[in-house]
């Protein structure tokens, strides 16, 4: 049934983007770590490979743009829910150009495109947590109230609550969905605080899965035909303790995906793709 909120985690398509050489030196970062471009590219290829081959998604790969060093982090450029795609207005000025190619790709996929025209609004997709029932928008360095309002206007069916992001880049820098009604959350104070707020703001009850490392809390949940619950999460190499927590999820198909290089640029797993559920016409 083509009902509201049906099929959380159902995806058919993914939009990804290549890594420009400028990433290594020019991409924005909060740490000073050096990025190995080749390693980063290798990592990204593996990531795309999982989506395409292992999970059978139709992957739309946008070409890298040297003028947009952060362009691989496509998540920030658009928020897709159902048939509607909101093209964002990223908080970092250097990233505003990233939305162009994203918009075209989404148009090609016949999405209903909503754009932000308000010059006072900023919104990064990384601050948007969709739980299947409602949205939480992190108010961070990159996303402001106005951006959240526009998101609320674009997705009228859902409640949109704001959550302050006190530390970390984005809301999803320390949390993500691990299943229907399951929030994966880091154990830092600010992460736990944010979770409390989300719980208070919501009419729904969420289970939580607390992982020791904030960055490990960013994972990708999908519910795919013939595969069931799928979770892409960090590797043992990066966060051994957190992986142990994920391994307790018995119903999930767990796929560790390496993110050693991109994490230096504050890139998490969800950052590198925009997932879309393109319903095939019924019957």
């Amino acid at each position, binding site marked *: 049934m083509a009902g*509201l909120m049906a099929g959380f985690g159902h995806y058919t398509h993914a939009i990804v983007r290549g890594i420009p050489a400028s990433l290594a030196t020019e991409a924005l970062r909060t740490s000073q770590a050096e990025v190995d471009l080749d390693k980063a590219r290798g990592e990204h290829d593996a990531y795309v490979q999982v989506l395409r081959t292992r999970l059978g998604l139709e992957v739309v790969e946008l070409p890298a743009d040297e003028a947009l060093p952060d362009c691989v982090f496509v998540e920030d450029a658009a928020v897709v829910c159902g048939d509607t795609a909101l093209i964002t207005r990223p908080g970092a000025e250097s990233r505003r150009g990233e939305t162009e190619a994203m918009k075209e790709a989404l148009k090609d996929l016949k999405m209903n495109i909503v754009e932000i025209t308000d010059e006072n609004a900023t919104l990064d997709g990384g601050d948007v947590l969709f739980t299947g029932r409602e949205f939480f928008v992190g108010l961070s360095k990159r996303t402001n109230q106005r951006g959240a309002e526009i998101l609320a206007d674009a997705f009228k*069916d859902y409640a*949109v609550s704001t959550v*302050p992001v006190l530390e970390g880049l984005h809301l999803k820098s320390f949390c993500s969905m691990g299943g229907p009604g399951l929030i994966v959350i880091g154990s830092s104070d600010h992460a736990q605080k944010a979770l409390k*707020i989300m719980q208070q703001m919501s009419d729904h009850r969420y289970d939580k899965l607390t992982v020791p490392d904030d960055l490990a809390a960013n994972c990708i949940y999908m519910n795919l035909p013939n595969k069931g619950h799928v979770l892409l999460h960090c590797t043992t190499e990066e966060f051994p303790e957190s992986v142990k927590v994920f391994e307790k999820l018995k119903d999930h198909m767990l796929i560790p995906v390496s993110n050693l290089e991109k994490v230096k640029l504050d890139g998490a797993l969800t950052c590198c793709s925009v997932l879309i559920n393109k319903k095939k016409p019924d*019957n």
Partner: protein
Amino acid sequence: MATEASSETEVKENTEESSAQPDQSEKATQETQEVLNTEGEDKEKGKVKEKEGKEGKGISRYLPTWLKKQKSLSQTSPTKETPPTEEPTSKETEGEEVSAPEVNGHAEEAEEKEEVKSEPVKEKEEESNSNGSADTEPAKEEKVEESVQTTPEEKKETTKEDQVAEEKKEQEQETQAEADVQEGDGQISIFQSPLRLVRKPKMKVVVCRVTLLDGTNFSCEVEKRAKGQYLFFKVCEHLNLLEKDYFGLTYKDTHDEKCWLDPMKEIKRQIRSNNWQFSFNVKFYPPDPSLLTEDITRYLLCLQLRDDVASGRLPCSFVTHALLGSYTLQAEFGDYEPDQPRPLDFISQQTFAPNQNKEMEEKILELHKSHKGMTPAQADIQFLENAKKLSMYGVDLHRAKDSEGVDIMLGVCANGLLVYKDRLRINRFAWPKILKISYKRNNFYIKIRPGETEQFESTVGFKLQNHRSAKRLWKVCVENHSFFRLNTPEPPTKARFLTLGSKFRYSGRTQAQTRLASSLIDRPAPSFERTSSKRISRSLDGAPVISITEAGRDTTENGHDPHLELQSDSKSQLRVHGDNIYVRHSNLMLEDHDKTQEEVLKHQASISQLKRSFMEAPPPSPPQPSQWEKRLTSSPASTIRVQQQQVVCVPQTEATPADSAVSDTKEPEKLPVVKTEMVTISDTFAAQKTEIATKEVPIVHTETKTITYEAAQLDGSADGEPGVLMTAQTITSESLCTTTTTHITKTLKGGLSETRIEKRIVITGDCDIDHDQALAQAIKEAKEQHPDMSVTRVVVHKETELAEEED
């Protein structure tokens, strides 16, 4: 009062017209009556009179719930509205109601002729009975003006009333027990008794026009002084609606604001400007419409929601608009037929969305095709299943400002109070988090339960446009909280109970009650006409009705666990598990600040003492903007706090029974005594068979006597499962020689919540206090305070400090 109906009505009309404030004039007129009555008997009590007038306005407050209910039942009976099936539905009030119908009938027979005359006196009688509490009623600011208004009438009517009073006095005293019920009958007689019609030839009848959900109008004649519920029941009868508790009537006040017609009040006093125009609307949106019993109820809910969606009150996305529209189409027209052009005509006539366009209409048609084979009732169910998930479903929005003047919206819904800024939810207060709701002038306040780690309660304030909107919001909150959170409506305050604030309480059935009631509905699914059948001559609803119903029921049974919701609720309750919070009120959490709290005076019942002491605490002071305002606009992370109140510690009476209270006994400290006496009685009628176990304890010089009165049996659910603790409150009050600790716990057991009130009453004083009598009195008071509850256990723990020589 009915005796004077003809002349008095005129007078009152004048009052009404001259008054601008709906509530004022309403009270004014009511007060008139009361003041008059008082005069009849208590002429000498000149000073008391005014107070009584004030007090008397709330006379109905002192009637137990079932009496009010009784009124409603009796009022509907002449309309043939109350079918036999209705009877069991009032199960919630069973205990008290048993005797009511009987008395009812009797009273009517015996006193029918007298009734009219005696009525006002009875009210007075009631009033003087409750004199003790009269003083405790704080006055509203408004009232001063009101009593001024009423003075002229007062004089006019005095003599007549006086006579009536005298005539009836004796009779009254005899029939006092029935007085209340008769009062209910007084209402009935207006509509029923031919006698009365003869007596009051000038009785005016008004035509009410009610806009129904399908857009049609329903006209009906009501007596000019009929109460809201009379009209409401008429409308429900017309609609053949049994699950009526989700619905209500609205009217537009002079400021063109939509208001709910109070069923317990006279219509005339609520509407302004003689505009007898109403709308029938959904008042409480059921969170799970599939739990409704009848298709007709769901159909009406669908009609409301279609309008909510089309008008933009219930915002939804393009896709959802189309989906909902397609179910509407299926419900109204049945299967899509390619050669059937009518849906196309219909679709462009019909408004599905505020910004409907061709694209949407095409999408609607496209989706309509996929619903082939769905019955109208199934389509309604699908419509509701999708509508109920919308974030604004059932949210009643009220414009407000935070104290910095930033526009926000307050949304009242089944789960609590939501705060929006533009379209963003910036805060949410679930009902269990809210300790108290109040308003003062144009401010609206909620007191928040402290969080796990917090020590303080906090009060959040909002500014409404004006006093009226603050009151309206407050009322909506009271009603929504009662309907969705309580098992039974909060009883209107009784004589022995100190009341503060507005007498307004939700008077209807709660969701729990209405669900129970509708589960008992036993009638063939009524056939009803759908809008399409009215618009276009084609009807789909004749034949398939039966199958529709079955389909509907199936879904209900298989698809949904009726307890699901409660369970999730209880989950959220876990947070307060074990909390033992000293709250500044008991279950009287709904308080209306308009009453001057300082005027609270002493009260007979000890429980009132406690309430008084709570109330004497300073009212929420105006918030310090800098402190809370910016927090409010930002997020709930930083807790919003207008005012912090230290949580007062409850004296630990359990650990040290009696002694904290004993401390100020006059009796001088003497050498402790070695005499301990344990008395255990395990029977309801315990007083007689006393089983005494005496135990010598060499060192402690106290006498302890424990008597346990145990009720024969509770309902079976007594202690089967542990249940989930919902709330726990402990309240302590002290008076001269008694200290009362009231511990109220609400537990949830298998979907039913149980309220347990434990009172620890410590009676202290000199030996000349008759402890047995004090105990009897305490039990009696406890029973009176909670007539809807049963005393299941009485434990008497007696500690006596004996004089040395007695040892």
